């Protein structure tokens, strides 16, 4: 294990590790400028900004491609290094449009950050800037501004090494070199927005996010993506107007550095316009709205009324809730209601086992594993869907409680299932999303708004059995309930509203910091 000294600090690294690795290991990646290096991609060594001075070596070296040797003494804070980085920066800026005020990357831009640290502040270029393609529609989700591109080649390496789809390339040479796709064919793979994340400048921007918010007006908090059973670690970016985007947060065990494009959209059902805001009771043509807690009381009444014959109460669960909630609702059903008619609604039997080889899985639920574990603990794993259907057909179900989807769009069978649920005398529908299909249900139905995974603390078990606990990040529909709270109401217990967001994520204190995004 070679030892070296970096800026006076001694550190032991793995054999073969580069100086850049050592900076990362010391958690000092902010201290070294680097645009082309990315921990999850091959080394390109093209941006020439990660200059370091190595004792005994007359020339500066790049940290990303220099392997640490025993006793190496390295620094990147000498005047010589600063001078080199300053000029390197200036080269990058020769043809850069410097349109920060209208650039989406501003506030999380590698170029801005480095310029503040190493800028020359006095450009001496008298030549005209080279004009390149602007607002290039690269694909369904990504827009390119070639003038802003510094040709770090991260995006090219991403499509070459990670997705292996090879859409992107650097075409032409010299100062006319440009990022593009072969014959402008679309950059259309399920991971394309990751190129936006790794682009250190504003050359690649996300169609969905661009011009919607300045990043310094957003806070972020750690959570997971609930889009499928992979459970990618993500940061959710939001302000009081709602959630605006998700970005992956590195976790080697779960998602590496990436997330899929389908997952990027999973913030949409979190926002108010897609949400159920109040409890809604519909009986025939009569519709009544009430606060969620009152709705839950009404539901509890229905459950109690049917309880004389516990068999006439049934519970349907989807894989969209947390372990804690499953435990609460299942044990309440078993102990307090006395019913063991608990069923698992599999929304996607055809694609359930599918996997794209990278991250995205056919099971579009964050916690199917957790649900199955809870059912197993309580001995209801063997209940089959056919039993439920038979009971519904025979009219023996008095009150049916459905812990429905948080993301309605991943339940293509919603209408079909509801038609069958409507055969129960009364239906309690728990969901965070609002849907015309549900509203149209002919039998007496009460809909109760649920919190989404970013609004409550809970544990989710991914496909590989990794349990991940996430904390409440924000409250979008503050009155909405959790499944545990509904269980409390059904059981007649006091409701513990213990899940209010405990302060927002890690940037709460300083929401205007410039150092964000991964360099």
């Amino acid at each position, binding site marked *: 294990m070679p030892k070296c000294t970096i800026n006076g600090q001694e550190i032991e690294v793995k054999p073969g590790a580069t100086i850049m690795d050592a900076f990362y290991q010391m958690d000092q990646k902010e201290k070294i400028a680097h645009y082309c290096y990315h921990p999850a991609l091959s080394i390109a060594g093209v941006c020439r900004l990660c200059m370091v001075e190595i004792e005994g070596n007359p020339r500066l070296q790049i940290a990303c491609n220099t392997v640490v040797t025993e006793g190496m003494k390295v620094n990147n804070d000498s005047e010589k290094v600063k001078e080199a980085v300053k000029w390197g920066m200036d080269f990058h800026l020769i043809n850069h449009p410097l349109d920060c005020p209208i650039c989406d990357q501003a506030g999380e831009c590698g170029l801005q950050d480095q310029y503040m640290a190493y800028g020359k502040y006095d450009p001496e270029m008298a030549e005209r800037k080279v004009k390149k393609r602007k607002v290039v529609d690269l694909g369904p989700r990504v827009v390119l501004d070639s003038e802003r591109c510094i040709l770090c080649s991260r995006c090219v390496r991403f499509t070459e090494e990670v997705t292996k789809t*090879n*859409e992107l390339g650097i*075409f032409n040479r010299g100062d006319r070199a440009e990022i593009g796709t*072969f014959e402008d064919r679309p950059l259309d793979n399920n991971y394309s927005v990751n190129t936006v994340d790794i682009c250190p400048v504003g050359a690649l921007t996300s169609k969905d996010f661009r011009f919607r918010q300045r990043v310094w007006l957003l806070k972020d908090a750690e959570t997971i993506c609930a889009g499928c059973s992979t459970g990618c670690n993500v940061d959710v970016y939001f302000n009081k107007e709602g959630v605006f985007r998700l970005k992956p947060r590195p976790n080697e065990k779960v998602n590496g550095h990436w997330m899929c494009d389908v997952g990027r959209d999973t913030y949409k059902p979190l926002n108010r316009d897609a949400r159920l805001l109040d409890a809604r009771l519909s009986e025939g043509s009569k519709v009544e709205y009430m606060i969620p807690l009152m709705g839950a009381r009404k539901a509890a009444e229905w459950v109690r009324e049917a309880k004389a014959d516990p068999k006439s109460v049934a519970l349907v669960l989807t894989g969209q809730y947390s372990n804690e909630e499953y435990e609460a609702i299942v044990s309440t059903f078993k102990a307090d209601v006395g019913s063991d008619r608990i069923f698992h609604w599999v929304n996607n039997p055809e694609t359930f086992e599918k996997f794209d080889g990278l991250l995205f899985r056919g099971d579009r639920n964050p916690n199917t594993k957790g649900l199955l574990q809870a059912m197993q603990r309580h001995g209801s794993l063997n209940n089959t869907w056919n039993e439920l259907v038979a009971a519904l057909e025979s009219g023996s179900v008095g009150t049916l409680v459905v812990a429905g989807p948080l993301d309605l769009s991943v339940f293509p069978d919603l209408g079909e299932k509801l038609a069958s649920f409507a055969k129960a005398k009364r239906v309690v529908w728990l969901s965070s999303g609002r849907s015309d299909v549900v509203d149209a249900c002919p039998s007496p139905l009460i809909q109760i708004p649920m919190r989404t995974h970013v609004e409550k603390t809970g544990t989710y078990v991914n496909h590989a059995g990794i349990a991940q606990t996430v904390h409440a990040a924000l409250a979008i529909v503050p009155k909405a309930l959790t499944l545990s709270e509904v269980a409390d109401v059904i059981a007649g217990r006091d409701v513990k509203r213990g899940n209010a967001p405990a302060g927002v994520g890690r940037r709460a204190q300083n929401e205007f910091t410039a150092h964000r995004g991964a360099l």
Partner: protein
Amino acid sequence: MFQLSDEGKAFVKKQLARYEQKESAIIPSLYRVQDENGGWVSPEAIDHLSELMDIPASRIQEVMKFYTMFNQRPRGKYHVQVCTTLTCGMLGGRELCSFLMKEHGVKGPGEVSKDGKFSFSHVECLGSCDTAPVMQINREPYHESLTEEKALKILKELK
């Protein structure tokens, strides 16, 4: 749809076997395609090569667009390549090319003259800096130490 001849395909296969990294076979293969496709490399031709070589089209396109000896558009019978890199550039390569284009009623590099006889392009260093400015016509030997008159005369003599 462009297809290489059987000999062309065999040639490409041979190149692929020849190098440690198959990307090294891109340049000779592009030359072959250009020769068989009337002097330029069309997007269809790259698709064809990509399939033949099992190399993504974007990788081949990168090489094709990097080197000025591959033409991205159809060319004239005589393709006049004027060097505009450092020495030639300083000694009037660009101006020379503009002059020749004007004389032949051609608006810019890559365009073909009405009679189909000439096309022009700026090329990167031809490696003959000591006799700048230089030009090359098709794959023939260079014409060196050019002046406008001299270059025009050379073109006039071409049938």
